[in-house]
């Protein structure tokens, strides 16, 4: 025969409140677990950011680059400044005061940015033209005026360049430039 361990009690069933408690604990565990998981992910993200910052911190600094940007009004301002500080009025006065027979100014152009004045003249012959230029430069230790171009029209209709022979009664033009 064999020994028996008989027990006639009802199989144990947990009461309702125990199941409710288990459910509450399970819900709490799930909540805490999900919260911890989110925080874990956040910590990972922060670690990655920190590593990135460390990497950036350890990188050598790039050489400073100076960006010079020209403003739109720059050229105008420089032009105005050149006009304001230039000596061109005295040069105009020289043109007005100098008069040589056979040389007539026909056009005048002031270029402040380049700091010079261009004068177109008509001349009868080269001797008078050179006399005119000398008169413009008279009394100035450093000559400001110079001949840029001269063109003498001969009667045959062919232009004569500087240094070439001139014909009487022809209309010749020259370009003078004065700088300051």
């Amino acid at each position: 025969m064999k020994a028996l361990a008989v027990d006639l009690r009802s199989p144990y069933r947990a009461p309702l409140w125990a199941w409710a408690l288990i459910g509450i604990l399970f819900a709490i565990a799930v909540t805490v677990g999900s919260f911890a998981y989110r925080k874990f992910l956040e910590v990972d993200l922060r670690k990655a950011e920190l590593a990135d910052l460390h990497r950036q911190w350890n990188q050598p600094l790039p050489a400073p680059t100076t960006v010079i940007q020209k403003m739109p009004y720059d050229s105008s301002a420089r032009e105005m400044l050149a006009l304001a500080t230039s000596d061109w009025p005295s040069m105009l006065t020289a043109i007005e005061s100098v008069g040589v027979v056979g040389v007539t100014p026909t056009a005048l152009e002031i270029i402040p940015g380049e700091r010079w004045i261009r004068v177109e003249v008509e001349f009868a012959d080269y001797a008078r033209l050179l006399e005119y230029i000398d008169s413009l430069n008279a009394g100035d230790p450093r000559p400001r005026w110079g001949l840029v171009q001269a063109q003498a029209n001969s009667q045959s209709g062919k232009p004569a360049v500087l240094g070439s022979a001139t014909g009487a009664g022809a209309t010749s033009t020259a370009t003078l430039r004065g700088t300051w």
Partner: protein
Amino acid sequence: MLWAGSEASQIYLSQTRAGVWLKSGTDQVHWLPATSAQDGWRQGIELLRHGGKPKRQRLTVWLSGALARPVVLESVQGLRKRSEAFQVAMGLASETTGLPGPCEIWLDHWVLDKPCIAVAIAQELREAIESSAREEKLHLTAIRPWWGAALNAAVKIQGAAPGLLAVEEADALTVLSGGADVLSGAATYSPRPDPAQTSGLLTRALMASSMKPAISCRATLIDAPLPTADAESTARRADVFPVRLEEIA
């Protein structure tokens, strides 16, 4: 003389009397006459309460063979699982044991195509015990048949050898028989037959099972006050409801 019992306060219930042993009281068992098991249970609870026992104490309930009856579930063709065997045993329990009304059962280790022993208790009695225990805040450590304690005591002496055991209580006679490490026969006679009927019944059982009397035992519940020496032994071993084992002549 052997002893069967446990460590918590204990109540023995039969159809005619109840025995109450308070763990922290005297070592003596209080025997109370009862008109039914439920009446004995109520009186036992009253005694526990009047004994000044605090609530939430542990309590072991022993049932006589008339209240917890063994039944052998023979191998049933088609059964595949223990749960199916449990349902079959529960369905057969009332008819096989003679217990009134629906029954609850305890089923031993069930093995496919092998007989298995079950123990049945009236559903009404178990509910009465458990519900009043809940009301009284008593912790039931177990509800056991007393004949089970007697069987375990006999096995302790005889081992797993084949044999026959007749357990005599006030209201029932339980006869168990089996081979090596197996229980193959179980029957409860309630009310308990008189001595002459019991003798004849055991003789017929021995002849039917072809067993020798030398390996057959009679176990009797001792419900009389014990001699002083035995009482001291009871106190030492914390066993309460003793069993006397003797060979069947």
